[in-house]
C-alpha cells in the first residue's frame, strides 16, 4: 500500500498541473502582501473606523495574522478550484491516458488502487494548504511581523492577544485542510465516473458554486436547507476565531466534513470496484 501511495504521489508531483496550485498561491499571496504594504493602513482604518471615533489605539494591527486571516477568508472560494484541478484528474486522467490498463492489470486490488490515489490526493490537498499557511504566515512575518489580530465577526470587533492567535490559525488551517479534503473527495468521486479530467473539475466547481449561491440567498426556504449543504461547513474554520471557542460547534462541523469525506470516498470505492475499464 505504501508503495502504491508512493507511486501515486510520484505521479502527482511529476505532473505540471500539480504545481499550478502552488504557483498560484505562491504568486497571489505575496501580491496580497505587497498590496497590504500600501493599502494595509486603509484596510485597518476601514475595519476600525467606528471605533476610531471613540478610541485611540497603538500596536501593530497590520501584521501577518491579519493578512493571513484576510487571505484565508478570500481564498476559500478559489482554492477548491486548485484542489479539483488535481483531484479531478486522479482517476479520469488515467482513463484519458489509457493507463488504467497498465495499472489495473497488475496484482493490485482496485480498492488499494483507489485508496492509494485518494491518499495521494489528500496529501496534495494538505500540502497546498500548508503552502498557503506558510506563504501567508511566514512571508507576512518577514514583512509585517506579528501582533494582535483584529477581526470582525458578525457585529463584533475582536482583538486577539498576540500569543492567543497562532494556535487558532493552526486550528483554522487544519480545519481548512479538512474542508478542502471534502472538495477533493467530491472531485475524486466525479473523477471515477468519467473519462476526462475536465468533467470532474467543472462539475465539482459547479456544485460548490451552486451551493455557495444557495447559501448566500436570503430566502427562508433556501436558508432552511443551508445546514445540509457541505459548503456551509467548509468556511467554518472561522469558528476558531470565536472567543470563547465553541468547541461543540467545531466538533459538529468536523464531524459533518468527515462524514462527507467518508460518503464521497465510499461511493467512489463502490463505483470503481464495479467499473468496467473500457479506455
Amino acid at each position, binding site marked *: 500500500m505504501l*508503495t*502504491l501511495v508512493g*507511486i501515486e504521489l*510520484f*505521479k502527482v508531483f*511529476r*505532473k*505540471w498541473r500539480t504545481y499550478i496550485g502552488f504557483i498560484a498561491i505562491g504568486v497571489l499571496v505575496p501580491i496580497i502582501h505587497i498590496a497590504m504594504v500600501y493599502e494595509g493602513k486603509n484596510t485597518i482604518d476601514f475595519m476600525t473606523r467606528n471605533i476610531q471615533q471613540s478610541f485611540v489605539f497603538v500596536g501593530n494591527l497590520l501584521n501577518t495574522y491579519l493578512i493571513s486571516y484576510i487571505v484565508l477568508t478570500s481564498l476559500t472560494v478559489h482554492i477548491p478550484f486548485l484542489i479539483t484541478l488535481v483531484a479531478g484528474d486522479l482517476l479520469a486522467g488515467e482513463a484519458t*491516458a*489509457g*493507463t*488504467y*490498463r*497498465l*495499472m*489495473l*492489470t*497488475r*496484482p*493490485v*486490488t482496485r480498492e488499494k488502487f483507489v485508496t492509494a490515489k485518494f491518499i495521494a490526493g489528500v496529501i496534495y490537498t494538505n500540502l497546498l494548504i500548508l503552502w498557503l499557511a506558510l506563504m501567508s504566515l511566514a512571508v507576512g512575518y518577514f514583512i509585517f511581523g506579528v501582533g494582535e489580530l483584529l477581526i470582525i465577526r458578525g457585529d463584533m470587533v475582536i482583538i486577539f492577544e498576540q500569543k492567543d492567535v497562532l494556535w487558532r490559525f493552526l486550528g483554522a488551517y487544519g480545519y481548512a485542510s479538512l474542508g478542502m479534503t471534502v472538495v477533493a473527495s467530491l472531485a475524486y468521486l466525479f473523477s471515477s465516473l468519467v473519462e476526462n479530467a475536465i468533467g470532474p473539475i467543472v462539475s465539482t466547481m459547479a456544485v460548490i458554486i451552486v451551493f455557495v449561491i444557495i447559501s448566500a440567498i436570503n430566502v427562508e426556504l433556501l436558508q432552511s436547507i443551508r445546514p445540509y449543504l457541505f459548503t456551509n461547513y467548509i468556511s467554518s474554520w472561522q469558528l476558531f476565531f470565536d472567543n470563547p471557542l465553541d468547541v461543540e460547534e467545531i466538533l459538529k462541523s468536523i464531524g459533518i466534513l468527515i462524514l462527507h469525506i467518508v460518503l464521497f470516498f465510499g461511493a467512489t470505492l463502490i463505483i470503481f470496484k*464495479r467499473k*468496467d*475499464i*473500457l479506455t
Partner: protein
Amino acid sequence: MDSKNEELVIEIRNLSKYFNELKAVDNLNINVFRGDVFGFLGPNGAGKSTTIRMLLTLIKPTKGSIKIFGKDLFRDRLSILKNVGAIVEKPDFYGYLSAYKNLEILGKISGHEISNKRIMEVLELVGLSDRYKSKVKTFSHGMKQRLGIAQALLHDPDLIILDEPTTGLDPMGMKEIRELIIHLSRDQKKTVFLSSHILNEVEQVANRMIIINKGTAKVEGNVKDLLDATNLSVTVEVSDVLKAGSLISESGWSEKLKGISGNRMEFNIGNQETAQLNKFFVENGVDVYSIVPTRSLEEYFLRITQEAI
C-alpha cells in the same frame, strides 16, 4: 503439436459480455494449454479486446467463467496477475515519465522484485535501451508498442497476453515481434495468447488458434490442421483454357477442378499436387501464367473481415 494432455493455462467457459443490448462476447469457450502460442483471431470489433479485458479483469463478464493456471480468475486475481504479462490495445504510458520510470513503477506493483538490471534487460530486448531516459510522450507509436512488450515481459510471467502487438509497426518491426514470440515460446517455454486481425501473422507463430466473429467462436483448432494442404485451393491462369480443359477431362485432375472463370481454373489441391499440375500443363503444351494459392480459411476470414468493415 498435440497439447491435449497438457496443463490448461486458460480455460474460458461460456463467457459472455453484454453492453446493454450489444452482445460483445457471446458464449465463448477457449482452451489454452501450457506452451501454446494461441492465436486469437478475428476482425476488428469481433470481441477480441473485450475478451482480453475480461482475461485481465478490466471488465467483469456478464456470464461464464475464466480460469487461469487452474484458478478462478476473479477469486484469485492477485496471484494470477502476478504471473501474467499483457498489452491491451494500443500501448499507453505515462507520457510525462521516462520509459525507464514507467517500467520502474510497473515493476514495483508487479508482485516481484524488479531490479534495475532487469528493466534495462527488457528495454534492450525491445531495442529501446538507448532511449530509456526519454519521456514516453516523445516516442513514436512503434516505440510505444515495443515498450508495451517490454512491460509485459518485465516480471518474467508465464502467460503473456498480447493484443495486436504488431499494430503500427513497420515490416521489420513486425518480423522482430514474431521472432520474439517464437523465442518466448520455444526457448523460454512461455504461453502466449496472441490476438490479431491478420491471419498471416497468427499462422506464422501460433500453434493453435480460434477465429471469433461478432462475439462467438467460428473456427477453432490446430493451426496446421486448419491450414492443412487439403484445405488449399489454387487458381491457375493458363494460356489456352479450352486445351487445358480437354486435357483435364481426360486425366484424373478433373476430380480436383472446382471451377473455371475466364482463363483461370480453380483446383482443390495441396502443395505437392500444385507442382505436379504445373508440370502436367507445361508438358502438354499449355502455358501457365500464374499459380495463386488461396485457402478456404483465408477466404472465409477475408469474407468475415469485409463484412465487419
